[in-house]
């Protein structure tokens, strides 16, 4: 039972961290740099690539456009965030976004005119929206109050499932987002603003030059997804490491418990084993029988643990609120094989002493005791 728990925890950790890493990498795949308002670079990355955190603030469209036309830049995708529909973020962007993520529609078409929206596959499923439906965006990123009642979005297309963040987004053009806020933010904003700019470099040389240029010459800030996710991982990593050690500890305790279990059951069954000897079973045979018992115990525990781990992760995934980093229990990875091997090793390890005891047992004494 302990083995099952230990393995389950390790499985969950292993699966969760690989899946999160995979998702993060998948989402930031072709994005070399994010440019946004000054603030935490990690926050900028989280909000603009993973759509998890709040945006850092707005940047003037004019400056963004200047950067977009910089010779270092191959492709620049503007993002305008700030609204949601039932918790799903509405992203104002342009057609570059489609080519950046290689999007395809499964029905309908991509947004073109103002207030047309193309929604992610998951969104369509979860919110039960289909082509032709209309909905109201709400101000903010999660709350459902403060609806923009004046303008309704119209769903013109649904994306094919991509396996990344776009499954959980509502895409529209930047102008639509502006229009939403046009009345509210009347006097405050001078000129038009966007939230951030996703940038793809023209050449690897840009890596060295461009971020410095942005940070020094403009009032903006640049953040590299690769660097920030590494930083994020080193932060999460501490927790994962601790949990991993914890699970290893549990496995160790499990090994000891298997040992004690076998040791005790051996005491009870020493008579049985002695009888087997009188029936002609050799010492080696008894040794193997006890080892086999330990192995069966631990392997059953390990397999149970693996199943439990997958089940739990599937459960967590099903009840997860943040749809952006959904976990799945149905993905198997090769590292689990090593868990199985570890279970095997524990089984052999824990049963070797009881087995050798069975091997050396003085059957005459055991039989005489009764």
């Amino acid at each position, binding site marked *: 039972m302990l083995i099952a728990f230990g393995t389950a925890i390790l499985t969950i950790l292993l699966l969760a961290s690989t899946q999160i890493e995979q998702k993060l990498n998948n989402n930031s795949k072709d994005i070399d740099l994010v440019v946004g308002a000054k603030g935490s670079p990690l926050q900028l990355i989280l909000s603009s690539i993973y759509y998890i955190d709040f945006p850092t603030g707005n940047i003037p469209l004019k400056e963004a456009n200047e950067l977009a036309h910089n010779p270092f830049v191959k492709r620049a995708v503007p993002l305008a965030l700030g609204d949601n529909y039932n918790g799903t973020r509405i992203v104002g962007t342009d057609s570059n976004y489609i080519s950046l993520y290689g999007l395809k529609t499964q029905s309908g078409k991509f947004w073109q005119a103002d207030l047309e929206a193309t929604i992610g596959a998951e969104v369509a499923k979860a919110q039960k929206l289909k082509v032709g439906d209309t909905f109201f965006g709400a101000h903010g990123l999660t709350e459902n109050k403060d609806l923009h009642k004046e303008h309704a979005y119209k769903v013109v297309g649904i994306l094919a499932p991509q396996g990344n963040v776009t499954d959980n987004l509502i895409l529209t053009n930047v102008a639509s987002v502006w229009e939403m806020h046009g009345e509210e933010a009347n006097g405050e904003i001078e000129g038009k603003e966007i939230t951030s700019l996703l940038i793809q470099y023209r050449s690897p040389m840009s890596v060295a030059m461009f971020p410095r240029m942005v940070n020094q010459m403009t009032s903006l800030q640049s953040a590299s997804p690769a660097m920030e996710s590494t930083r994020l991982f080193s932060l999460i990593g501490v927790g994962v490491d601790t949990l991993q050690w914890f699970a290893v500890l549990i496995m160790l305790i499990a090994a000891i418990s298997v040992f004690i279990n076998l040791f005790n059951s051996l005491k009870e069954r020493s008579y049985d084993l002695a009888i087997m000897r009188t029936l002609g079973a050799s010492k080696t045979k008894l040794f193997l029988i006890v080892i086999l018992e330990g192995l069966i115990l631990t392997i059953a525990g390990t397999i149970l643990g693996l199943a439990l781990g997958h089940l739990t992760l599937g459960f967590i995934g099903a009840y997860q609120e943040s749809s952006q980093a959904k976990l799945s229990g149905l993905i198997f990875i090769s590292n689990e094989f090593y868990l199985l091997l570890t279970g095997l090793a524990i089984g052999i390890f824990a049963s070797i002493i009881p087995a050798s005891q069975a091997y050396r047992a003085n059957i005459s004494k055991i*039989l005489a005791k009764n």
Partner: protein
Amino acid sequence: MQMISIKGVTHSYNNLSKISFSDWQINDGERWLLLGQSGSGKTTLLHILTGILKPTTGEINIAETSIYQLTSKKLDQFRGRNIGIVFQRPHLIKSLTIAENLLLAQSFAQLPENNERIHEVLQSLGIADKKNAYPSELSQGQLQRVSIARAVINKPALLIADEPTSSLDDNNATAVLQLLLEQSDLNQATLIVATHDKRVKDAFTNTYNLA
């Protein structure tokens, strides 16, 4: 023909009390009673006879084999094939059916599995209908019969019973004794019964007394 002979056998536990056993010759097909109070070394002698306990000195020959000259593995196999032992308590493997317990005895002795033989033995002991029952479903008397079945399943040349009747009531004791005699006849096995049970004595002519 000589089945068993023991010569100059002594055994001492922890170099303290030394028991010496007088020499003993048993011929093929004979029936012997091994008498002695508890503590007189009865079990020790039986263990020495069955190759479970190596004596400090002396030699034991069974069917012209000096059994303590054999390697441990050979000895285990020799015992499985040639000696059937009935213990005071049945001690069957609880998680296996009666038939499976007997199959186990065949496979431990590295003999081919033989279901007909199992049926035949159970039939002769009158418990063929319990073949697929588990030990917990049987009465004490029935269990002792199964343990006799297990002892004779491999047609041993020597059948040894250690206090086979002491935990049984009169009826069952008589029945078990009868079965032991019957089975040793049927399987042409030499029979040695160790006991202090007076109910058993009359059935035997040869006795070996322990001081």
